[in-house]
């Protein structure tokens, strides 16, 4: 073995070690959530998903209102945010020279990194205070604002990734621009678009800060309408982890496992979508 071989081996070993260090925390998080959460879920049984939270030092109960809240919030904010994101992205891609489209592009990139607590505060000021109440609607609006830049950026990239030749082929068939976009380009980019939507969905599933002062944290009643108070799993974890009660700590771990499972499902689905052989 000469010196060059040795150098290469050392470099490789170093790189491997560092990558291991980088992913180690992820495994640690996953393992401790599963380790701590699984016991809670086994002990509480299915009622963990259907019951309401326990009193202090009073068993495990369930997280049904928070689970329903998280899912409903994700759906509601998607209904508000995804159509907007789709049209913003299409607009930005189709009219790249339009000043408004350029604005959309820059703004959506800038909003990617907006502090989520600021969004919560904004909604508190412009929705919660005037309406005089917390609500699922206010929470969904805050989450929609969090989601829009993500989905817009992903959809933009998906549409831009469609080779120009398909656009030419569409126009050469005498089709109008909306036809070319919706009947051809969106179809070709559909996997990328779906992935973007799923990532936006996953993003809002775990958000906490925008909900702190928009939702009202009613974790004993399942929200039935957009004007009801609500709760999310993330808020429940946030609150229960800080209580002095051991049983509530355990509920928080169980809730963390449920939330992580939701994430994993979405992650796996989006992986499947992007992996499918294309062309």
């Amino acid at each position, binding site marked *: 073995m000469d010196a060059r071989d040795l150098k290469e081996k050392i470099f490789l070993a170093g790189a491997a070690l560092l990558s291991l260090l980088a992913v180690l925390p992820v495994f640690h998080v996953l393992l401790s959530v599963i380790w701590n959460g699984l016991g809670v879920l086994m002990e509480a049984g299915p009622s963990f998903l259907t019951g309401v939270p326990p009193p202090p030092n009073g068993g495990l109960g369930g997280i049904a209102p928070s689970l329903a809240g998280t899912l409903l919030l994700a759906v509601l904010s998607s209904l508000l945010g995804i159509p907007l994101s789709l049209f913003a992205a299409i607009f930005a891609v189709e009219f790249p020279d339009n000043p408004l489209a350029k604005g959309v592009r820059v703004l959506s990139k800038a909003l990617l990194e907006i502090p989520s607590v600021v969004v919560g505060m904004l909604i508190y000021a412009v929705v919660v205070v005037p309406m005089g109440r917390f609500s699922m609607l206010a929470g969904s609006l805050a989450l929609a604002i969090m989601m829009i830049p993500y989905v817009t950026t992903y959809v933009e990239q998906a549409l831009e990734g469609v080779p120009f030749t*398909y656009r030419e082929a569409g126009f050469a068939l005498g*089709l109008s621009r909306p036809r070319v976009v919706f009947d051809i380009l969106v179809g070709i980019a559909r996997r990328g678009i779906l992935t973007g939507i799923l990532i936006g969905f996953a993003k809002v599933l775990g958000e906490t800060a925008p909900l702190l002062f928009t939702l009202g944290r009613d974790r004993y009643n399942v929200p039935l309408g957009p004007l009801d108070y609500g709760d999310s799993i993330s808020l429940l974890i946030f609150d229960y982890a800080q209580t002095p009660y051991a049983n509530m700590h355990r509920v928080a771990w169980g809730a963390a496992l449920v939330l992580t499972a939701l994430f994993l499902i979405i992650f796996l689905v989006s992986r499947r979508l992007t992996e499918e052989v294309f062309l």
Partner: protein
Amino acid sequence: MEVESVTFEGKGYALQVEDLHVWIRGKHIVKGISLEVPRRRILAVMGPSGSGKSTLLRAINRLIDLIPESRVEGRVLVYGTDVYGEDPYRVRRLMGMVFQTPNPFPNMSIYDNVAIGPRLNRLVRSREELDELVKWALEKAMLWDEVRDRLDDPPHRLSGGQQQRLCLARALALKPRLLLLDEPTGNVDPVNAVKIEEALRSLLKDLEITIVLVTHTPHQAVRISDYIAFIYSGELIEFGLTDTIALNPRHELTVKFLRGEV
């Protein structure tokens, strides 16, 4: 489409190009080209890569409108319709186009690739009519026998040459008067190239159609066309009957190109 009612301006040419100029981002790409093609003939536009052939083609069906910072001057008449005096979406329906690299829509079946033009342009009234039209177009593209049992397959299961014939069928399904082909056999194996050329020739036998084919190989131009336009760095060097140009090229550049020297 109101093709039937079009009155033939001039001498009944299918395509008239008058002093056509194209600039893209300030660069003069097509420099004052004029030519006429009678109905039901094949024009081969030949010239080296980068000579402006593809741009000329895209100026004829106004795909050039998609290129940012492009500008066109001059006149193009297709079966008497002034291409730049009409709605671009309307005039494009008079024409079909086949591109250099086969580009069937990857997310649609073979059937839908052919059906999409008539369907979205609302040219058919029933499923039966559409089935007939798809079959007709695939037959004209000489692909029907190879795909009749697998119309629901995605196009990437076809070979490159079959995909190109599928693109030809997609264009033909709109029954275009003018068919534009941008080096259609450039990325296709020789056997399929011959099939495409055969299909093009046979189209002229029983259809009211005129063909403009861009190619960088003089052999193909001579083999297939009735007229040849030789373009060099955006200028029309020579234009005339194929036999005349092949046997008696007047310009030195044409001679060199035919010999494969430029």
